[in-house]
Every structure is written in structure tokens, then in C-alpha cells.
């Protein structure tokens, strides 16, 4: 490619918007061409200049006005709104989670499930199918998943199945059972285990969220919530903890 063609690609190259092949072409060219290298350097400088420009966050007054307007609780939703208020802060956490590539496999998975849990909260999309009435969640999930999904409902006193969704973890489609306990949301991620031996629950804390994972019945289980680890551990989240309850339907 000649300089004219390269020049048009420099912006997208710098912005990471080129496909790998063309990106490599530009990289090679600019190494050997002083003019194009200088043009690229100018783009960097422009970017640095804008970086130094002022940002204008909303004033505290505007924020207070909007928050009271939109997050103003009509009674029945009071605790959800409290939750929603916390989410503004939670949204910031997503970007700060440790990059997955730097972690040991279990930690990377913990990071991923926390990220998925947080995403669902921030976007306000907790479930694809609500557990309204009887027997709605399991058949819905079973139809969406590429593995047999035959999981018992673990609802018990104070722990309610709110809905289910499919999500993506570890590069595959996984089932998520969404439970509620008081004002807390608990996402339980389930997918087939690659290695067979069962593993007892282990807990950890990731950016203010608590995570418990275990392996049972050939499935990986990961429960994420802002509940205290001890409290989370006491919940009958795994069917292997409990005698069989009413099943999720079917």
C-alpha cells in the first residue's frame, strides 16, 4: 500500500478499528515510512490534547434533582430503589475488575461471574424469564441451553426464585438462576463441568461481591451476591446440600 492509502487508515489504526490484516499492513508501513510515522504521532498528540481538556460532570444539584425525580420511591419498590442507587456506584466497579487474562483459572471465572452478575444489575436485566406462577423457569432454560438442565428448585424460607436467564461465561452459554433474599439478588450460574470429581464449596470475595463455587452432579455452580459470605454459605444453594425440593417445573 502507498502512503495515500495508509494515511486514510491511520485514524482507524490508532483507534483499534482495523481488522488484524490491515492493522499489520499499517504497522509495517509506518515503521518504514517517516511521513506516516509523523502523521501517526500527530494523531497521538491531538488525542493527548483532548485528554487534557476539561470534563464537565453533572453538578451535584442536577444529580440530586434527577435522582430524586427518577429514583423517588413509590412505596412498594422502596428497597429496589435503594438497590438501584447503589448500582450507580457499582457500575464503576465493572471497569476496574482485574483483566481476566492475568488470573488463575478459578479466579478468572470468579471475575467473570461477578462481571456478569453486575452487568445484569446495572442494565436492570435480571432475568429473561420470570418465575411467575409455577414451572416456568426450568423448561424455558432447558430449551435455550446446549446441555441437559434438570435442576431442582432450591427455594426455601427467605430464598425465592425470581427468574432465569442465559448468560455467557468462560466462552460458553450458561444457565443463571436468579434468587432473591430480602433486597439482595443472588445469581447462581450453572454449566457442565469439564472435570468430573465433585468439589465442596469454596468462597471468595471479588470487588465487594461474594462468590461461592462448587462442583456437583457434573455441573459447575457459582453463586454471586452482595450478601455476606457467611450468609451466602448458609443458603441451601446447591441441591446436594438439601433433600430434593419441589423441582423448577416439568
Amino acid at each position: 500500500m502507498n502512503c495515500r492509502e495508509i494515511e486514510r487508515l491511520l485514524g482507524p489504526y490508532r483507534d483499534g478499528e482495523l481488522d488484524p490484516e490491515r492493522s499489520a499492513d499499517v504497522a509495517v508501513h509506518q515503521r518504514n515510512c517517516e511521513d506516516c510515522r509523523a502523521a501517526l504521532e500527530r494523531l497521538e498528540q491531538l488525542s493527548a490534547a483532548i485528554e487534557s481538556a476539561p470534563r464537565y460532570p453533572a453538578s451535584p444539584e442536577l444529580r440530586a434533582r434527577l435522582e430524586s425525580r427518577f429514583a423517588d420511591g413509590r412505596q412498594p419498590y422502596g428497597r429496589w430503589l435503594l438497590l438501584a442507587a447503589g448500582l450507580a456506584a457499582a457500575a464503576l466497579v465493572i471497569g476496574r475488575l482485574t483483566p481476566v487474562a492475568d488470573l488463575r483459572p478459578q479466579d478468572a471465572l470468579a471475575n467473570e461471574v461477578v462481571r456478569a452478575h453486575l452487568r445484569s444489575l446495572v442494565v436492570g436485566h435480571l432475568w429473561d424469564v420470570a418465575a411467575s406462577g409455577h414451572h416456568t423457569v426450568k423448561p424455558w432454560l432447558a430449551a435455550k441451553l446446549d446441555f441437559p438442565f434438570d435442576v431442582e428448585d432450591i427455594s426455601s424460607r427467605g430464598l425465592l426464585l425470581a427468574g432465569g436467564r442465559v448468560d455467557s461465561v468462560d466462552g460458553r452459554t450458561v444457565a443463571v438462576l436468579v434468587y432473591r433474599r430480602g433486597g439482595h439478588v443472588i445469581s447462581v450460574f450453572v454449566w457442565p463441568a469439564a472435570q468430573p470429581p465433585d468439589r465442596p464449596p469454596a468462597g471468595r470475595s471479588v470487588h465487594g461481591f461474594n462468590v461461592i463455587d462448587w462442583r456437583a452432579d457434573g455441573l459447575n455452580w457459582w453463586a454471586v451476591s452482595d450478601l455476606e459470605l457467611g450468609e451466602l454459605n448458609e443458603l441451601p444453594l446447591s441441591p446436594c446440600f438439601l433433600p430434593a425440593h419441589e423441582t423448577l417445573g416439568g
Partner: protein
Amino acid sequence: MPLSRHARFAAAILPHLDRAHNLARWLLANRQDAEDAVQDSYLRALTYFDSFHGRDGRAWLLAIVRNTCFERLRKNRRHLELPVEHIELARDTSPDPEALQLQLADQAAVRRGLESLPAEFREVLVLREMEGLSYQQIARVTEAPLGTVMSRLARARRRFEEALAAARKEETA
């Protein structure tokens, strides 16, 4: 019981308030107008919230904000001269007063350079350089084809480079 509409709205859309305000402030170049536009935008966003499908709350909101701002710009064309305002220094507080002076002067030049551009160019630079949006996201926000986004961004960068050079010359004159 699913989350109420208001609570879902608050969770999905309120976290983007600062970004919404930053875009409005750069587009309208006026504090009061920006606040009004952001407030209007949030009301509109609530009205249209049922058309939001939970994908990308930031891009969805920014699209509403920019449409609100461009409507305002069209309505009051005359109202474009820029009020002088105190601006807070972005981050870096260098202890050396002379260096600080230079830095302040350069920041003023950057700001003047940006503000001298047509709104479409300011917009694409704010979305790309400040908000870090991908071309695809910018296309969604501005409801423009990808090719248009790319050429607009390239032109905006060229224009900004010229405007910045001119403003820097003036600042140091």
C-alpha cells in the same frame, strides 16, 4: 416481582449522567443550556424507555442527549457566543507556577480549539476521545452510517489540529 419501570430506568440510565452532561456541555458550550438539555433528555428517555432493550444504556442515552442538543442548537442559532467561565484544572497540579501557567494556557487553547469547531465535529471528538466509544457505538449514537462516522472523525481531527495550532499561537502571543 420484576423491578419496577422506574427502578429499571434508574439502574440503567442514571449511571450515565456525568457522560450525558459532558456531551451536552461540549455541544451547547453553556452550563445552563447543558443542564436544561440533560434534564429534558432524561424525561424523554423515561418516555421512550420501553424501546430500550437493555443492550447499551450509555449509547442509548447519549443518542437522546445529542438529539436534544442539536434541536436546541437549531432553535437558537444566535445564542452561540461562548461565555467566559472559570474552569477547574483537569487533574495534574504541578507545583511549579511557571509550568502551571503554561499548562493552563495550553488547556485554554485546547478548549478554544474544540469550541471553535462545528458541533458535529465537536461531537465526534468528544464521543471518540473522551468517551472512548467505538465507531460502531458512535454510529448508533449519531444515527449515521459507519462510513460517515469515519470520514467525519477524520475531518474533525484535521480541523481540530488547525484550530489548536491557531489557538496555541494566540495563547503564547
